[in-house]
């Protein structure tokens, strides 16, 4: 065993990278669920974003354009779901699951021409002297721009839901769509916007995996990240700050367990491998269990179908 080989600074820096796709997908899903819609298709939207972003980045040579198109691709997938569930009133759980399967299939088909290709590199932001600060510089100021973008997005979503009128309307739709409708808010368009936002975020998360974290295209490469994002939203009791915490915990323990293995810690590998799932869920459950009142509970209309006649 050689725990000294683990450099905590590098560890924290790489956990920020490992957590970024989950943060992006989870914060998008949080907004969707806050509006009262349960979209289980996160995995499908992520993988679609992953291939859209990859393909566009390879063809155009521009990672930024790739990310933009990944967001569009994810949003387009999400709008299929929105159309089916909001206008045709299909079951949200079944439609979401179908979206995941559909996304995996479509991405594999589109991706055939892109196997074994290297994408253009995303440059790190040069923060000048900030990156040279010992310890903090390496942890905080030495990443690609998507890491900061994801953090900024979490802050924006938090502020939007907490302080703005728009956030209040979104939450009202999620808590009681009938009341919101009676007040004159247009429930279906609001939900469609939320769904599209969720899809765009998931698409960005997927593109982060295919363009930066791995970086290459392979079928099914998101490998369950969308499901982790869904679980984190639930265990974070629908709060933006805790989504961040949950994603960092998960990403951090995933990276840590690999480092511990590499350092030869004499703990059974099986225990280390399942630890990210166990610890993340345990911490978030304990936190929401300690909460008093209904503040931490799910949006009341989550997964319910809205129709103006009812």
């Amino acid at each position: 065993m050689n725990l000294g080989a683990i450099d905590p600074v590098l560890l924290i820096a790489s956990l920020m990278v490992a957590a970024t796709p989950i943060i992006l997908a989870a914060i998008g899903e949080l907004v969707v669920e806050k509006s009262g819609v349960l979209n289980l298709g996160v995995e499908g939207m992520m993988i679609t974003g992953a291939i859209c972003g990859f393909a566009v980045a390879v063809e155009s040579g521009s990672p930024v354009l790739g990310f933009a198109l990944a967001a569009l691709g994810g949003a387009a997938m999400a709008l299929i779901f929105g159309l089916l569930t909001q206008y045709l009133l299909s079951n949200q759980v079944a439609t979401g699951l179908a979206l995941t399967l559909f996304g995996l299939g479509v991405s594999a088909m589109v991706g055939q021409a892109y196997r074994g290709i290297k994408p253009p590199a995303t440059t790190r932001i040069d923060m000048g002297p900030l990156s040279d600060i010992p310890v903090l510089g390496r942890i905080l100021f030495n990443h690609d721009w998507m890491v900061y973008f994801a953090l900024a997005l979490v802050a924006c979503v938090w502020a939007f839901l907490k302080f703005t009128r728009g956030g209040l309307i979104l939450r009202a739709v999620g808590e009681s769509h009938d009341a919101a409708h009676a007040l004159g808010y247009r429930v279906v368009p609001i939900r469609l916007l939320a769904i599209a936002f969720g899809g765009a975020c998931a698409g960005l998360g997927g593109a982060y995996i295919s363009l930066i974290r791995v970086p290459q295209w392979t079928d099914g490469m998101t490998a369950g990240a969308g499901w982790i994002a869904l679980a984190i939203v639930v265990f974070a009791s629908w709060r933006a700050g805790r989504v961040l915490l949950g994603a960092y915990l998960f990403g951090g323990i995933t990276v840590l367990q690999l480092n511990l293995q590499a350092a030869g810690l004499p703990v059974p590998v099986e225990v280390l491998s399942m630890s990210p799932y166990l610890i993340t869920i345990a911490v978030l459950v304990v936190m929401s269990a300690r909460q008093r009142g209904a503040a931490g509970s799910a949006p009341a209309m989550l997964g319910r179908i809205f129709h103006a006649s009812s």
Partner: protein
Amino acid sequence: MKRRTLLGATAALAALATGAFAQDKPLKVGFVYVGPVGDGGWTYEHDQARLKLIEHFGDKVETVFQENVPEGADAERVMTQMALSGAKLIFSTSFGYMDPTINVAAKFPDVKFEHATGYKTADNVGVYSARFYEGRAIQGHIAGKMTKTNKVGYIASFPIPEVIRGINSAFIHAKKANPDVQFNVIWAYTWFDPAKEADAAKALIEQGNDVILQHTDSTAPQAAAQAAGDVITFGQASDMAEYAPKPRVSSIIDNWAPYYIARTQAVLDGTWESDNTWDGIGAGMVGIGDITDAVPADVKEEALALKDSIADGSYHPFTGPLKKQDGSDWLAEGETADDGTLAGMNFYVEGLTGEIPN
């Protein structure tokens, strides 16, 4: 689009064959894959062999395949489906399909099964594998010579004999080349998960390992090594030449085509019998990919000499004196390991640290 055209072509061939020679239907051959055919590694090479099979036999065979089949009950369903739809020969290409293959084979005595890398046989189940550890010996030698930090990282998949053999073989030869070398093993518990493989590679690199060996199937560790800079890797199962000349300095290439063609021919001739094939560099089942110029010329020469001596049988990668990890004697001076021990290998050799998970 390639696969679609291919499927179309296969279907068209099949239609032609059934139309023109209705009494002489093509032999239907099924393939069960653990990953996607585009993984660039293990499954990719099996599928390349399938394509060569079609090329060789033309309209005498018709192939079907299923990608991404989980190891377990799903595999049983897939093989049953293939057998019911008329496949007479089924290749199941991953270790975890062993029991499913045996179970399905018992239900279809007329269908021949070929299971890769396993050890259970039946009257209609043969097994085949390649002596990848021969290639690992060459990787180990290059790794031992090339490492500057004396730390070699190894991304292992599952703790099965196949993988353990590879670690032992690589370690023995790295140690011969460099007595100070140390191996750090990460068990990824997956054959194919690019994000996890990339994370494992990054963790190893951050801890100072400057050579990464992998026994997982994607090219993600290669990409991580390339991003990190001064790290070398080896292609696994497939050449992974897109990462040459550095980080990928050489590779182990699986070449299944000759075996698949021979076994299919045996079924066509009615001479198929259950067998246990285990071929290596000598028979051409294991290929060593081009050693690039990132490797110094003298090291390259030594590696090639090692390859030749393994190929002609004059050297066995597991030659004594060797001890097990716990210090007990395994092979005496000059003694070589027998295939039985190798096939069931469940221990590390002396000098490796860490434990094998159960």
